[in-house]
C-alpha cells in the first residue's frame, strides 16, 4: 500500500459508510487537497487522493465499477485498493491511498 503516513495515530470520523452511495463516491476536502471515498457495489469502502495520476482528474466524479473507478476526464481506470491504473494504462503512475478504517459503520480517515 502506498500510504501517505506509516503509522496513522489520529483517525477522524468523516461520516457513515451509508453516506457514500453504492457504486459512488464522496469528497472530503483537506488543506492538502480533496480525498475521495468510494463505496463499491458490494459495500466495500476505499479512500484515495481525489486526483488521477494522468491529468489530475477528480476520481470522485467517475463511474465506480467492480473495484475500480473510471476517471471522468480521460477514462483511465484506477484500482481503488492500490491507486494504480489498471488495464491499458497499467504502470503509468499511482494515486496515493489514504488509510481508511470502518468502525461501527463510521468512516475513519487517517489524518494526513
Amino acid at each position, binding site marked *: 500500500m502506498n500510504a501517505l503516513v506509516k503509522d496513522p495515530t489520529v483517525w477522524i*470520523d468523516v461520516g457513515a459508510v451509508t453516506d457514500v452511495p453504492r457504486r459512488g463516491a464522496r469528497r472530503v476536502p483537506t*488543506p492538502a487537497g480533496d480525498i475521495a*471515498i468510494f463505496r463499491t*457495489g458490494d459495500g*466495500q469502502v476505499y479512500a484515495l487522493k481525489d486526483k488521477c495520476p494522468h491529468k489530475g482528474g477528480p476520481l470522485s466524479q467517475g*463511474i465506480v*465499477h467492480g473495484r475500480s473507478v473510471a476517471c471522468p476526464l480521460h477514462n483511465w481506470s484506477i484500482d481503488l485498493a492500490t491507486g494504480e491504473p489498471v488495464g491499458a494504462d497499467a504502470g503509468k503512475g499511482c494515486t496515493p491511498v489514504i488509510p481508511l478504517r470502518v468502525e461501527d459503520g463510521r468512516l475513519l480517515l487517517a*489524518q494526513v
Partner: protein
Amino acid sequence: MTKERLVVVGNGMAGCRAVSDLLKRDPDRYDITIFGAEPRVNYDRIMLSPVLAGEKTFDQIVINDEAWYRDNGITLHAGRKVEAIDAEAKILRAEGGLEVGYDKLILATGSDPVRLPLPGADLKGVVTFRDLDDVEAMMAAAAKPGARAVVIGGGLLGIEAAYGLARRGMAATVVHLMDVLMERQLDASAGFLLTQAMSERGVETVLGAQSEEILGENGQVTGLKLKDGRILPCDILVMAVGIRPNTALAKAAGLEVNRGVVVGDDLRTSDPSIYAVGECVEHRGQCYGLVAPIWEMCRTAAASLAGGEAAYEGSVLSTRLKVSGVDVFSAGKFAGGDGCEDIVFRDAGRGVYKRIVLEDGKVAGAVLFGDAADGGWYFDLMRQGAEVGDIRETLVFGQAMTEGLRGLDPSAAVAAMADDAEVCGCNGVCKGTITQAITDQGLNTLDLVKAHTKASASCGSCTPLVEKILKATLGDAFQVQTGPKPVCGCTSKGHDEVRKRIVAEGLKSMPAVMQALEWATPDGCPSCRPALNYYLLCAWPGEYRDDGQSRYINERVHANIQKDGTYSVVPRMWGGMTSASELRAIADVVEKFDIPSVKVTGGQRIDLLGVKKDDLPAVWADLNRAGMVSGHAYAKGLRTVKTCVGSDWCRFGTQDSTGLGIKLEKFMWGSWTPAKLKLAVSGCPRNCAEATCKDIGVICVDSGYEIHIGGAAGLHIQGTQLLTKVASEQEALWAICAITQMYREQGWYLERLYKWMARVGLETIKAEIEDPERRRALYDRFAFSQRFSRIDPWAERVAGRDSAEFNPLSRRMEFVPA
C-alpha cells in the same frame, strides 16, 4: 469418589450440545444440572423457520426429549430463571430461593433479539422471531383470513420469518434498511435474485426503508409508518433486526464482558471455573449467531471439561437460507476486496448466479444463488486454503465437472470426457450427441452445432466447452465465429440483442438485465452500465428509475466537467432566442459567483465556464428564477435547436423557422437519446442555421418543410440526406419526433444518428416515417416518454435532489493542520 458438579445455565442449543459432547467423552465425570428459561425441552431453534412455514412440527425439531435428561441423570430446571452467580463461593441462585453449588459452570445464555425502540413497539402483535412463543403468536395472527404481516429486517431471519408467514397465507412485506437483502451474505446481484424469488413466493420487499413508527388501535398493531410517509398496514409486525448477546448474569457475576462474555481459546471466561459457549460469547472480538461456530465452541469446551487440551481458534462462516426452492449459499469474502478476483457464472434459464472470489490463487469466498449444491465444496476449498490455479477454468461449474477433469490439459480433458457426459445442462445434450452431429452432418461452426443439437442454445454457459469439442473433433477445420460486436467485455451479447430482450422479456432493472443476459461481471463496467441505463430508460418510461451511479459525471450532475474539475453551465435558450432579462440574470450570476469565462457557443446559447461544483445548485437557482432551465449541453439527449430568423425578419425567409425551432425544442427538450442530438431549422435554402450538417435539419421552402437527417460536423463531416417533405409545421413536428423515437429505440448507445442511419439504411427509416400509422405510433411513444422527461433537472436539484452530490461528505478535515 464424589463426582464434580457441572451446572449449565441455558437449555438451548449451545448448552445442551456442550453437555452431549461432554457425555460422549466422559459420561461419568460430572453431576449435571441444566437451567433453562423456556419451560420446554431442548429444541433446534434454527428449525423454527420450517415450523413457522408449516414444513415441520415442533416434535420434529426437538433435539433432546425428556428421556435424554433422565437417561443421562441430568437435572433439568426448565422455566426457572437463574438470578445470580456467586463466583467466589461457586454457588448459583435461581428463582424461588434455589441454590446450587458447582465446580464447573457453563454459561450458555444465548442472545436476545434486538427490539427497535420505535414508538408503538409495545403494542400487541409486535413480536420478535426467537422462540416458540413468537412462532405461536405469528401462527395465531396468520389464522385470520386476509391477514397481513410486516417484517422489519431483511437479514436471514427476517426473510425466513416473512416466507413462513406467506406460506401460512399472509400477505407479507419485508422492510429493510439497506438496499440489498441479506447484504451481509449476498452481493447486489444475488440480493436482486432473492428479492425476485421472494416476490414469487408472496413476499414483497421494501428496500432502503427506514421505520419511523408502529401504528396501533386499541393497543393492537395496525401498521408500520416509514420515514418517507408510506404506511404499511399489518396485523402482526415481526422485528428481526439482529441479536444481542445475553450477558447480564455474567456481568453481575463480575466476569469480563464486552459485547459478549469474553472467553479465551479454551472457552473459559475470566473465571477459570466458568466456561461460556454459544451466542452469548465473544471470542477474539467476534460474536457468532450461526450454528456451525457454536458447535465448534461446544466441542472445544467439552474437551476441556473432560480434562483434555483443546483450542477454539474462531470460525470461518458460511450461510444457507432455509426457504424452500430458494437455494442460497454464502461464505467468506463473497463480495471480493483487496487483491481479489471474481469468477462469475450466470444461467438465466435456471435463475442461477454464482460468484467465486479468489485471492492469491485460493478460494476466499463464494456466493451462490439458485444452485448451491457445491457450496460445501467451495467452503472446504476455502477452509483448506487449497490452491485452485489448476482448476480455475472449471471451478465455477462445481465439483463434479472439476474433479472429472482435474489435472488434464483442456483439450485432453475434452477428449477424455465420456460420451454420455452432459455438456449442455439447459437442453440435456451429451458430448456424444454433439460429436456425432459434428461428424455425421459435417457441422463446422458453433451456430450449426447450436441449430442441430441445441447445445449452448439457451444460456450459453457451455459455449466454451462446445467450442472445445468442435475443435477436438474437427481439428483445423473448425472455424472461429464472428458474431455481432459485444456491448463490452462483460458480455458476449450485442446491443441489438440486449435491447430486444429488455423489451421482449420485460426486464426492468439493471440486475434483471445482467442476470437474464448472463453478464460475466457482478455489476458491469463504465461501458455497459450507462448503455443499459439508457436502454432501460427508453424501454420503460415513467417506470424505470434512472441510476445516477451508472451515468457519466456530466449527466449525473447536469453540467460539463472541465479539465480542472470545475463545471460549465449552459442554460437553454429556446430556438436560440434570449431576452434582456435573461441576459441580465446571466450577467448577475457571473458576477455573484465569480465565474471566470463566458462564451457564446456554436449552438446559439451562452456557456458559463469554471463554476465550482459546490456552487452549481445556487447558480441554477438564480437562473431558474429568471425562467431559465438546463440546456442539457452535457446530455446524450436533445441539445439545441438552432434557427435563423426566418420570415420574422429575413427578406428571404419562407417560413417562421424560429417559431418552428422553438416549438420543436419546447416539445423535445429533456429527452434522452443514444448519443447527442442536435437540430436546426433554416428559413430558406440559403440555410443560415446550417441545418444540413445536423442530426436532424429542417429546410423551409415556399411549399413546406424539407426534413433532412444524418448530418455530422464534428469528428466526421457529413451532409444530411433528405428524408421527406411535409406541408405543415404540425406534420414537421410529427415526423421529427417519429424519427427521434425510431433512433431512440434502435440506436446503440453512443451511436450518433448518422451512424445509425448508415447501419439500418435511409430507405428503412423512410418507409417507417412515410407510413402514417407507423409514424403515428412512433410519435405517440415519443410523446408518452416526454411526459416524464420535460422536467428541469436543475430545478429538481435546487429543490434538494441528490444534495449529497454537491456537498462534501465532511468538512472536518478542511482545517486539520497538515
